[in-house]
């Protein structure tokens, strides 16, 4: 029940809805007492022969009133209580989303997207259950149960009430116990199902191997076995699930039996009328639900608490990259100076960068090359403050990165990442990502600069074509160029291309680079690349290996050097030749 305390802030916030909802629930509980009572009274009148038409219609009018009243009130408490619960999940979902947008990459390194998704879906729905069905069952089972028992005890017979209630607690205990078992076996069945899912996934990914060895039949047999396992585990679930109805039926049956047996004894001794006995059994029927609900309540609350704890823990996490006090509220510009003594990724042993120091003047182009894993991307990630714990410092225009507000720093940098990620939106929206209100001409001109304009016009809906996970599939080169256009639209102080030309052919690369040279006049550009042609014209080229600068200089200087750069350059030239059939 502690979860109700944890959710106290929400109940306070929505106190109007909860108070009126609970008040209505109580009122409905009272109204529920009317029909059985009317049945009893009419039966007695019939039995005694004292019934008149007028009397009958009077009672019928009361019944109609109670019926309509209950209908209306039941509608309203649902809106108040269930509605608040939906509101809670909406609110928490927004909070989670906001929290996610504030967290730095080190947070995402520790967690898988799937797990974060599970918190935002499964856990929130369990919490919603607690705030809705949980509150309802708690209030309803107490109020309906309470009023019905009181009505039975005070208006009919307290002795009979006590006798008939004996079997009822067993129902609450048993259903709660079944609930726990059901949860456990269901979990096992889910696991078996997820194994079957993995098996299917594996068969489809390995379809070539299976076909090669002609093992279709054997694989199907294997699938049948696993699928059998799923069936067996589900049958266990089915068995526990099937315990509910019979258990209720037996316990209610016994209760009714007690009511009739002892009730008739009281009728004969004159303590009860027949009508009262009938009313009593009808009340007994009303008790089934609260007892069942009480059993459920424990399960709902238990799950809700576990989920709320997980979500709350997630929300408590703090981002490790924040603005310092009095940070500069200006967009940085000027010369860039790197002096990194050592940087190690959180949780890693080996440093990723060692003694990397260089300067580039405003308006210059820096090229960074080296093998995969040499530290090229890491160098860029430090510039956009995705990671911070390093020895040394990076300055722009004489101030360290941390002197600027994070938002201002990032406003200065147009970043084109290695893994070109596009959103499920139109091409235009993807390019105008930083400013959805930008005029169409600017989108077009950014696209032209990135050499993608003509491609876009070929798409079925032009700039309105939806791309991304759920849109049309684009080639890697097209995605890269759209990412470049997205960064160019900002006209940033510093443009960063992180191996973003790898999937375009040499001619397109040359076209993009030459239009960049014109467009980026006076602004700084940083390019990392596997292909040396992309950085050939840079003012400074750094060759990285194992996080260290092993060569530096301009293209001509490096070619005279007879080192890694020259060998790689020649190799790539030859490779290009081979790609074109040797001519």
């Amino acid at each position, binding site marked *: 029940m502690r979860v109700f305390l944890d959710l106290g802030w929400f109940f306070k916030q929505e106190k109007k809805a909860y108070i009126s909802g609970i008040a209505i629930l109580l009122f409905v509980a009272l109204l529920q007492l009317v*029909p059985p009572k009317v*049945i009893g009274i009419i039966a007695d009148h019939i039995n005694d022969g004292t019934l008149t038409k007028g009397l009958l219609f009077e009672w*019928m009018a009361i019944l109609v009133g109670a*019926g309509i009243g209950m*209908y209306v009130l039941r509608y309203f408490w649902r*809106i108040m209580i269930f509605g608040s619960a939906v509101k809670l999940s*909406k609110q928490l979902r*927004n909070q989670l*989303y906001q929290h*996610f*947008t504030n967290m730095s990459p080190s947070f*995402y390194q520790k967690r898988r997207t799937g797990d*974060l*998704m599970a918190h935002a*879906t499964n856990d929130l729905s369990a919490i919603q259950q607690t705030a809705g069905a949980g509150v309802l069952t708690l209030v309803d089972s107490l109020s309906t149960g309470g009023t019905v028992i009181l009505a039975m005890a005070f208006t009919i017979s307290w002795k009979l009430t006590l006798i008939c209630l004996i079997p009822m607690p067993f129902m609450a205990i048993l259903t709660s116990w079944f609930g726990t078992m059901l949860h456990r076996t269901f979990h096992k069945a889910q696991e078996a199902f997820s194994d079957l*899912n993995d098996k*299917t996934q594996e*068969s*489809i*990914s390995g379809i*070539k191997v299976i*076909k090669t*060895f*002609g093992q279709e039949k054997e*694989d*199907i*047999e*294997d699938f049948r076995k696993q699928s059998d396992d*799923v*069936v067996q585990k*589900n*049958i266990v679930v089915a*068995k526990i699930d*099937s315990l509910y*109805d019979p*258990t209720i*039926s*037996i316990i209610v*049956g*016994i209760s*009714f*039996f007690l009511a009739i*047996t002892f009730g*008739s004894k009281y009728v*004969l001794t004159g303590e009860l009328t027949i009508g009262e006995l*009938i009313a009593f*059994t*009808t009340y007994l029927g009303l008790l089934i639900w609260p007892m069942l609900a009480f059993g459920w309540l424990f399960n709902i609350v238990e799950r809700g608490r576990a989920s709320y704890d997980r979500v709350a823990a997630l929300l408590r996490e703090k981002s490790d990259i924040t603005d310092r006090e009095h940070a500069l509220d200006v967009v940085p510009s000027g010369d860039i100076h790197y002096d990194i003594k050592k940087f190690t990724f959180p949780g890693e042993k080996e440093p990723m960068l060692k003694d990397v120091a260089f300067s580039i003047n405003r308006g210059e182009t820096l090229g960074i090359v080296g093998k995969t894993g040499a530290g090229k991307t890491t160098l860029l990630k430090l510039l*956009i403050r*995705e990671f911070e714990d390093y020895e040394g410092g990076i300055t722009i225009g004489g101030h360290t990165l941390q002197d600027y507000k994070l938002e201002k720093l990032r406003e200065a940098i147009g970043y084109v990442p290695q893994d070109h*990620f596009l959103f499920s939106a139109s091409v235009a929206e993807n390019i105008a*990502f*930083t400013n959805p209100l930008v005029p169409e001409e600017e989108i077009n001109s950014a696209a032209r600069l990135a050499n993608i304009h003509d491609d876009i016009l070929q798409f079925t809906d032009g700039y309105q074509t939806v791309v*991304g996970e759920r849109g049309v599939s684009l080639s890697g080169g097209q995605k890269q160029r759209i990412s470049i256009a*997205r960064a160019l639209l900002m006209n940033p102080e510093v443009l960063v291309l992180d191996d973003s030309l790898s999937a375009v052919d040499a001619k397109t690369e040359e076209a993009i680079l030459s239009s960049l040279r014109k467009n980026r006049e006076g602004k700084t550009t940083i390019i990392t690349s596997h292909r040396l042609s992309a950085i050939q014209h840079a003012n400074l080229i750094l060759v990285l290996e194992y996080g260290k600068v092993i060569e530096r200089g301009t293209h001509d200087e490096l070619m005279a050097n007879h080192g890694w750069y020259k060998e790689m350059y*020649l190799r790539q030239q030859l490779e290009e*030749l081979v*790609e074109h*059939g*040797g001519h």
Partner: protein
Amino acid sequence: MEETAQLTEKEQKNVLFRLLSYTKPHKKELILAFTLLVITTLGELAGPLLVKIFIDDYLTPGNLVFGPLIILGASYLGIQIVKSLLMFFQLVKFQEIALKIIQQLRVDIFTKVHSLGLKYFDQTPAGSIVSRVTNDTEAIKDMFVTVISTFIQSGFLLAGIFITMFILDVKLALFCLIFIPLILLVMSLYRKYSSRYYLDMRERLSQLNAKLSESLQGMSIIQVFRQEKRLRKEFEDINEKHYNAGMKNIKIDGLLLRPAVDLIFILGLIIVLNYFGLTSLNSPVEIGVLYAFVNYLERFFEPVNNMMMRLSLYQQAIVAGARVFRILDKEELAPPQNEESNLSIEEGSIEFKNLTFSYDGQRDVLKNISFTARPGETVALVGHTGSGKSSIINLLMRFYEYEKGDILVDGKSIRDFSKDELRDKMGLVLQDPFLFFGSVRDNITLHNHHLTDEQVEEAAKFVQAHTFIEKLEDSYNHKVVERGSTLSSGQRQLIAFARTIAANPKILVLDEATANIDTETEEAIQTALAKMRKGRTTIAIAHRLSTIQDADLILVLHQGEIVERGTHQELLALGGLYHKMFLLQNGAVDRLEDVMQ
């Protein structure tokens, strides 16, 4: 979700009937389950009837005879207990049948998937196939387990209640018949509106989840471009819409679900009480009958509530069923073989004759390819990405059907051999050595259980894999997890070799791995490859030219054509594409400089 809209009433009905046809093999069990259901329903109905007899015959007249009362009480309790027990078995039975039906459906669709050609797998994302086999069938399971059994049970109970009512009092029962249209009306209203709003909410939820998942994946982009606020706003908008849809659902449920059914119950009470009240003004009335009617009325509405709550599941199951049947009806089968044939591959010669091939029917990826590999010879394919090397292997392995030209094995068209013969005599080692979940041994034998431990070990020794496997924890029983990510790529390659050698093929097809392999295993791989090729006709894709210098024939491919052919020495002497490729991989810097000038 939008797919429901596309299913016409008639199509929905077809899907339902086709799903129901899966019950046929379970006729006997179904009859048993139905018998149990009839008995429990009778037991359900007997309770109030016994109380009625008690009230009218014994209690009201004050005629309490000990003997008959004991019998009455005992039979009441007895019926309750027996009924509850049978109810348990009946509920389990229905679910069991449903689960078995789904099992059959799952195996059917999995079998079907295996019979499809690779073309289908190229066009369909693996995730969506998996989802058909598992998630969609799961949705159908929900229908069989909950919807159908709830409807059958509720239907039975309702019919039983009406029959008993008619036995008790025909006139009153006739009055009560007006519930049927009323309930049907509420149900159809509910189905109409709730399915609309429910689908709307599901759609919003999937939008919400899609947005969230996309944002999580693209979070670094969002942050680096400072769009956190805007995306928060967008997310809040979708969330708000989802909230509104959720509220609408609550309202519809509130208007038409339990509260409405309860209101109908009150209406029923009014009818019953009025009937008895008015009748009692003129003639005596049996109070017990009144009791029984009221009691039946109470029981009447629970099944109705149950049925209404299951309606949305039904809708989902039909959509899922339609998707599953679409796969079952697919006709893109794997290329056919002559299964009647008892031709066998004796020599292992291979000839490509003027073969032209296209995946999409528009762009030829192979143009007029001809070459011959005599028994025991090695033919190597080299060329840049997209030059057509893999396509040659895909055709030789019969993964795709070709139209123009032919492939001859031992002088006969490859189509004339049975599938089993081809799979037995031809071994393929893939570039990506796919490892399955299970032990190392399982990965060598695959499903071939005739292989003894000695044979497995022999195969592993033959390909130089034995040494490293022995060093693994549990050696041959070492568990392969996550597609073998704990093993090095070279080790995975060696296991794949062992797998092929254990099957002892006549013809070997190799797609060399491009991945960087540590020097230690590299050596083992080269030795293994040389041994494997001995005595087998081999078609090999080579990325490292050093590995195929002794090949009998090297084909250099460029854009689907064979541009150079000959032995290593002949091709080097030619000074063309092959020569350049060789330099690229093996040349020193000064040689490179020479060529470039």
